[in-house]
């Protein structure tokens, strides 16, 4: 399993989030993960349920990428996104799933290095944790 490319889902806002990803890809930045990006109008649109569903449907890790806080296209959308991520992390901990499978990131459209960095962080986490499946220590 450790050799398979981890499955990662990223919810990106269509402003700075997606623009920073596009810039990284156009600039030929390399990243080692299978990342499925879902564009949302704003990370304030990301619901906890979207994140849980992505995990339920087989993602090993999920990230949400929004504008920098205080520089959000929709003013406070990325703050909302962060709060939802935090709540889902609490729920995951309560059911014994590693909360670090879900992370919030922020970028401005010019941060070309950000997306490869996120892909690598999330893929390392996913490889370390493996898929959500029975572990030896659970009943």
């Amino acid at each position, binding site marked *: 399993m450790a050799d398979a490319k981890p499955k990662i889902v990223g919810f990106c806002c269509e402003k700075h989030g997606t623009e920073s990803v596009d810039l990284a890809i156009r600039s030929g930045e390399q990243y080692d993960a299978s990342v499925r990006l879902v564009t949302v109008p704003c990370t304030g649109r990301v619901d906890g349920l979207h994140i849980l569903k992505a995990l*339920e449907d087989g993602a090993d890790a999920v990230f949400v990428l929004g504008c920098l806080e205080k520089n959000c296209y929709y003013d406070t959308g990325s703050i909302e996104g962060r709060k939802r991520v935090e709540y889902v992390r609490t*729920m*995951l901990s*309560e*059911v014994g799933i590693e909360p670090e499978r879900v992370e919030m990131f922020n970028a401005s459209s010019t941060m070309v290095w950000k997306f490869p960095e996120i892909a690598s962080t999330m893929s390392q986490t996913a490889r370390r944790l493996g898929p959500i*499946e*029975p572990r030896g220590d659970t*009943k």
Partner: protein
Amino acid sequence: MIVAERKPLGEIAEMIAPYEKVCVIGCRSCVAICLAGGEKEVNMLVSAMGLLNRRTGRTQNLDGLVLERQCEKEWVKEVEDRILESDVILSMSCSLGAQTIGDMYPEKIVVPGLNTAIFGVPEEQGVWSEKCLGCGDCIIHTTGGICPIARCAKSMLNGPCGGSSDGHCEVNLELDCAWYAIHERLKLQGRLELMDMVRPPKEWNTSHSGGRRVIVREEARLTSHQKRATEESQ
């Protein structure tokens, strides 16, 4: 409104662990407004329990649905099939909904997904505060519209106590002193003389202390003839 909070997911998981078919039922009324047991919360709970089961390697059929009002039999009746098919009902409404289902289907096991907490009001997004204890004999016309039973830690009828300090309550300095608030409100209304009014001990038999309360409105009840006619028309 009734304000409730979701129980920790671990506690919920333990309650439903012995059962294969779980029907998770939310409510679109108070508990949806306080973000505890509406449609979104039911779906998130079903999803989180699905992940827990994946991690623990078990299969459990989790069926999530939401009623308009879980405390009214008519709405519950609409999902009777799904209730009867399940091994356990996980109620995501306040305890009134859970008990309505339990009383309608006494052979079914109903477990509470929420802790029903207070009669409260939304103060701001994400904050609800208690404002009434349902004493059954309201006196807030004498206290500037502020309930001393619910909002004073000692439920004092003639306050403040000696511990009121800078508008805060001695029992917990993070709480507002209800009697300070009453004084300020009465001052604003030019009715400070009400502070001198002596409120005699309350008749607590109108509260829960007098035993379980049932409110009957005779003019609203159906006669036996009307009940029969209603049953026949269904």
